[in-house]
């Protein structure tokens, strides 16, 4: 099988992919992946379960990624105090507010034309919810992506994601590994 070179190539044949990243490089490689998505697509939905919007935007700027190409759902900032949603970020009251997360996802797809959605990360959700509730949320998101004809990326920590990754794999078209070779990174299909 030919090795895919970029997201557009992978997502041309697969609407939803699972993306496996080594734990030690997870945050760094996910930012790299977001940067590549930003180069390849016009509007990306970034659903952050445990990273504040401001911190993410700071990281994006450090890595020369244009945050204007992204629309964010931030599930963590409001746990530390009230904050108003901005033009490109919806703040959900807490990662535990499952219905609010669903409403925010629906709102974004109603108001924005999204090319790709990335959820960072499904396995963090298992800290807050039962296994089956996480699966149902991911299934709902997959269905929403299908209806909106939008692509989806579900990233997972390679070593620590546990059984959830195997279950969510059912809602993907393909699983790809991100591999780090010093400063370079690339894709590898799982066979």
């Amino acid at each position, binding site marked *: 099988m030919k090795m895919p070179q970029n997201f557009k190539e992978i997502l041309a044949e*697969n*609407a*939803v992919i*699972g993306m496996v990243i080594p734990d030690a490089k997870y945050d760094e490689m996910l930012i790299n992946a977001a940067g590549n998505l930003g180069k390849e697509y016009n509007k990306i939905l970034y659903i952050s379960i445990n990273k504040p919007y401001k911190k993410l935007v700071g990281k994006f700027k450090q890595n020369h990624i244009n945050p204007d190409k992204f629309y964010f759902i931030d599930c963590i900032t409001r746990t530390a105090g009230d904050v108003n949603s901005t033009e490109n970020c919806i703040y959900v009251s807490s990662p535990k507010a499952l219905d609010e997360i669903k409403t925010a996802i629906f709102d974004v797809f109603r108001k924005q034309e999204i090319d790709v959605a990335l959820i960072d990360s499904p396995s963090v959700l298992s800290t807050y919810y*039962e*296994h*089956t509730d996480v*699966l*149902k949320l991911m*299934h709902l998101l*997959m*269905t929403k992506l299908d209806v909106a004809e939008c692509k989806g990326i579900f990233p997972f920590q390679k070593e620590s994601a546990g*059984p959830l990754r*195997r*279950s969510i*794999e*059912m*809602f*993907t*078209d*393909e*699983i790809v590994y991100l591999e780090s070779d010093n400063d370079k990174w690339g894709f590898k299909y799982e066979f």
Partner: protein
Amino acid sequence: MYKIMVVDDEPDVIEVVTDILESKGYYVIGAISGDECLKKLEKEQVDLILMDFFMPELDGRMVIEKIRENSKLRDTKIAVLTSATFKKRGVEILKELNVLDYIIKPFDADDLVMRIKKILE
């Protein structure tokens, strides 16, 4: 008489499927969780398992994998009966696990019976 196990965390689904299948002459056993399914299978073998996917603790894939790993149970016929829609990778996994059919809820009773008959005969 064929023996069918219906595994679903919603008792109403077990009841409805049981009513449909008993009216066609099948013997039906219900299991409310993956764990209960595995415990019941230790005591009695069945001809077919209808497996839900969205279940707490052990989801459908996990339960099917445990059945396939068990030398006494691994040849049991299994069909998935679920509200979940699986994508390409998911369907491949069902094939790898030798799942014989994938029936989506809500289902048509006549269609369900026809598909079960096809699997068993």
